[in-house]
């Protein structure tokens, strides 16, 4: 499996390059010269960069899994690697898709893999629930996506990006473009766990941790961002939609950050953090800072994968997800601690770690776009990010209590990928810049000399200050205990309690599902059985009864038969009378 994957990776990277290449074959044929839909490969900077991320992380995760899942039974393991490989295939198909339809096809396939992998431990009811929940919620967004591309096709007659982009350049896009793009964006909302469809991602942590790292942190969940980036020329033609994306993204970022604060499960902290970071990326795209958003996507892929895998190493060691039962793991697992802290710093946007660059760029871009609201939301999120991440770091690796059992460092096959990812988290930007020999926006084809947005001069100290403040607060509360956690909670009023419930969004969905969908199903089921079919049965029963009733005519008395003859005669005579 792993070899196959490497092959795919090699192939994908071999095709990488700045020059845009599109190769298509007919897929859905129809009468006339052009097929209705094609399959093919579209290679440009965006897809190449994305493919690099996917293949790299996927390979590392595969390696890591060799250690992580070493105890699994062979058939289950086969299933696992099959799903993983299928995922890599589907994700690459998505990345290289030259048209909306193919993108949608692989979009669904990665969703499928996500569903299957979340449900990997299918005997666990929670895993089963989480898997279908993930599928349904993303499907909800996909429905919009599908309708969107159908509508867009209806208006333009094509799915091809190339044709559509040319139309965008020529300004010949249809009038209902905003509607189409909003619907398409819905797909991204579901996949990239934007509010209000973010509820599935935390639950998706029921899957094995490598899966969370690959699918639910680094790659699949960013497909939504990728989608928006891919169709960016079209979104640019519908600026209203971009603003919506920005606001939703920023709100999601903040919301998820607050939610992350209330979690006890280390993976759920990371999951909410992913949601929050996806919000960042979306906001960037919404603000027009394409390069910043995509860069954050790539870098986030590295450090979030790192965080997950490191968390996985911890879980692997202590056999629990609950942070509060961990503690002082830094002693038993110093290497893991180091890489985890590296990831955390990158995530928090502390210079010189890679996250700092992209986060700065995003904040700058949002400021430059004049989106003050989102800027405020994101700034708060910067603070909160540092807070909840270091809360996790302190509670897990330092803290007052020691974890039970005998935690140990993971084996080399797991540690290797961690180191590699740590390096990338530290110096991802620099390494990338060096390899490419140009700035990232240039790489993306935004023209020579294009740079990342950097905003006003006060931005860097402001954001770094916020991050450090968060770090400090976390240290005071969770390490030193100077400020008791309870006091903090009290100070925030009912907010923490709500946050622990996910602000009731889950409950709302559940209510709609149970009280709306299932109840309606029961109602219609009843109608079908007792009304629609009831009519049939009543008619049948009437026919049966009519037979039984008519039979009463046959009394057995001869004279009644004679009456019958006479009545028949009279009937004929009456008919005759009526005939004239």
């Amino acid at each position, binding site marked *: 499996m792993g070899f196959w994957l490497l092959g795919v990776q090699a192939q994908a990277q071999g095709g990488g390059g700045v020059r845009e290449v599109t190769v298509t074959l007919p897929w859905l044929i129809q009468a006339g010269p052009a097929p209705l839909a094609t399959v093919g490969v579209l290679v440009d900077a965006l897809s190449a960069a994305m493919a690099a991320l996917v293949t790299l992380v996927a390979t590392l995760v595969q390696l890591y899994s060799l250690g992580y899942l070493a105890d699994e039974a062979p058939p289950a393991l086969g299933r696992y690697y099959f799903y993983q490989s299928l995922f890599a295939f589907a994700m690459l198909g998505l990345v290289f898709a030259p048209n909306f339809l193919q993108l949608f096809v692989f979009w669904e396939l990665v969703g499928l893999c996500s569903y299957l992998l979340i449900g990997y431990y299918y005997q666990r009811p929670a895993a089963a629930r989480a898997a279908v929940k993930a599928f349904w919620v993303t499907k909800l967004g996909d429905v919009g996506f599908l309708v969107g591309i159908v509508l867009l096709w209806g208006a333009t007659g094509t799915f091809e990006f190339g044709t559509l982009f040319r139309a965008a350049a020529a300004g010949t896009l249809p009038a209902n473009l905003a509607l189409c793009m909003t619907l398409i964006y819905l797909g991204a909302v579901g996949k990239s766990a934007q509010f209000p469809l973010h509820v599935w991602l935390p639950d998706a942590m029921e899957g094995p941790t490598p899966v969370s790292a690959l699918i639910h942190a680094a790659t699949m969940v960013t497909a939504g961002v990728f989608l928006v980036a891919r169709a960016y020329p079209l979104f640019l033609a519908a600026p209203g939609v971009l603003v919506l994306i920005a606001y939703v993204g920023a709100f999601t970022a903040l919301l998820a950050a607050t939610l992350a604060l209330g979690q006890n499960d280390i993976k759920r902290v990371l999951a909410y953090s992913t949601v929050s970071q996806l919000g960042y990326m979306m906001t960037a795209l919404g603000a027009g800072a394409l390069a910043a958003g995509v860069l954050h996507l790539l870098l986030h892929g590295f450090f979030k994968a790192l965080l997950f895998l490191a968390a996985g190493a911890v879980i692997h060691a202590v056999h629990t997800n609950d942070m509060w039962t961990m503690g002082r793991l830094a002693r038993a697992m110093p290497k893991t601690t180091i890489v985890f802290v590296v990831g955390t710093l990158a995530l928090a946007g502390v210079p010189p770690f890679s996250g700092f660059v992209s986060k700065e760029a995003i904040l700058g871009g949002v400021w430059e776009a004049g989106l003050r609201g989102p800027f405020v939301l994101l700034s708060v999120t910067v603070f909160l990010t540092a807070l909840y991440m270091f809360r996790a770091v302190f509670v897990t690796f330092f803290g007052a209590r020691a974890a039970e059992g005998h935690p140990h460092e993971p084996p080399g096959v797991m540690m290797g990928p961690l180191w590699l990812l740590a390096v990338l988290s530290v110096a991802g930007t620099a390494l990338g810049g060096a390899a490419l020999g140009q700035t990232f926006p240039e790489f993306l084809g935004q023209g020579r000399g294009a740079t990342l947005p950097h905003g006003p001069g006060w931005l860097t100290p402001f954001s770094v200050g916020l991050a450090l403040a968060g770090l400090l607060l976390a240290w005071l509360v969770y390490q030193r205990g100077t400020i008791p956690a309870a006091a903090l909670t009290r100070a925030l009023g009912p907010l923490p309690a709500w946050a622990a419930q996910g602000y009731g969004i889950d409950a709302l969905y559940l209510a709609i599902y149970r009280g709306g969908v299932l109840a309606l199903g029961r109602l219609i089921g009843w109608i079908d059985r007792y009304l629609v079919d009831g009519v049939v049965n009543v008619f049948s029963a009437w026919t049966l009864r009519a037979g039984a009733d008519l039979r009463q005519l046959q009394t057995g008395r001869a*004279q009644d038969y004679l*009456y019958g003859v*006479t009545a028949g*005669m*009279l009937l004929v*005579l009456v008919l005759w009378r009526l005939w004239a």
Partner: protein
Amino acid sequence: MTAEALGLGGVAVLVLGASLGVVLARNLFHSVLWLALALVGTAALFVLLHAEFLAAVQVLLYAGGVVTIVVFAIMLTERLVGDTIRQTNRGILAGAVVSAAVFLAVAGTILRAPRAPAPAATALTTATLGRAILTEWVLAFEVLGILLVAALLGALYLARAEE
């Protein structure tokens, strides 16, 4: 003309009265006797219609033959049951309504029908009848013969007490 009408009127009253007697009498024997009277009355009608031969047949075969068989049958069954046969009617009202409806339907049509001016009355001669039967209706006559044999055979088979 008037004489004939008068005769018809008288016979009609007789026939209808006898008919009602047939269907209303309590005692089966009385019914049979009323029937005989009705048949004889019909024979009288035939005479009025100048079909004397048929009148004769009517009296001999019908009033004589049929009534005799019926009486025989009644005697036979009476002997079997050992009781005088009483008979009653049921559903008189319904029967009356239905019969009246049939009568009205037929009578209404008769009165409604356009009648050509009364054609010359024709009388029946035995020779005409004999010739007709043996020429034009010979096949029917043969068939009737077979029918009589078959019916006789059947009636005999049924009525005969099994060995």
